[in-house]
């Protein structure tokens, strides 16, 4: 107890248009800008298919949800998508309250999310 209020952001590219962003720790008004920056950076480099791994996200608030929604809008404008991976029961509850469950695609694993993004891409 003590150090998990920080956020660790890890990004990994899969192919020339797909990238994974793993968010470990707590996402709030102080830490979320880091995640936003990382995602904007990927967007600028042409990665419009994003997998956001929330498996190790222990806390998340409306600032974080706002940034995820904002990023989703941007990638969709570019014909891409953003899928969430493995949010905790807690985070699912927040997605339900805010009705964002109806907006985001949610997968259980990164592999699943990546496969679904690829499929989406070939369909369009």
């Amino acid at each position: 107890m003590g150090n998990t209020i920080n956020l660790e952001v890890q990004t990994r590219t899969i192919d020339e248009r797909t990238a994974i962003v793993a968010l470990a720790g707590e996402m709030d008004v102080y830490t979320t800008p880091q995640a936003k920056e990382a995602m904007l950076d990927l967007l600028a480099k042409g990665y419009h298919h994003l997998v956001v791994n929330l498996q190790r996200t222990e806390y998340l608030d409306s600032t974080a949800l706002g940034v995820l929604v904002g990023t989703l809008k941007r990638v969709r404008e570019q014909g891409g998508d953003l899928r969430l991976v493995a949010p905790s029961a807690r985070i699912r509850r927040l997605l339900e309250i805010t009705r964002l469950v109806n907006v985001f695609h949610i997968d259980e694993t990164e592999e699943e999310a990546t496969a679904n993004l690829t499929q989406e891409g070939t369909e369009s």
Partner: protein
Amino acid sequence: MAACTGCHVELRLPNRPEFVAVARLAVAAVATRMGFDIADIEDIKVAIGEACTNAIEHGCAGANTGMITLRCELGEDELVITVHDPGDGFDPTTASRQHRHGTMTLSERGLGMLLIESLMDASEVTCTPGNGTLVRMVKRVRATEAKER
């Protein structure tokens, strides 16, 4: 901890984003001692986080000085938390927000007040000209909780 009914805890923080986590953790510890279960403590953490974030982002907008004040009042079967900022306040009835029963628009804003209302048993915003904004939130200990240690 029924014995501590009537006790209160007060926390004063600079109006800066890095201190929202301090508020969350302090209130979570108070709630733990009152015997709230983990799910309720997580609800309380998010609501307090939202209220503090608003106090900092909107209440203290522009002002680089000023502190926000958090107060926990321990009732017999409820925790009352107030968050005060010295800002200009707002009209809660017209503020930009998501409506729980309205149509979902893909908005990045207005989620904070919705979360506060949904996660707490009661909440209330009072803006007093010249005396800032006070957000009052209540979480009740459920019957099955309150056994602790």
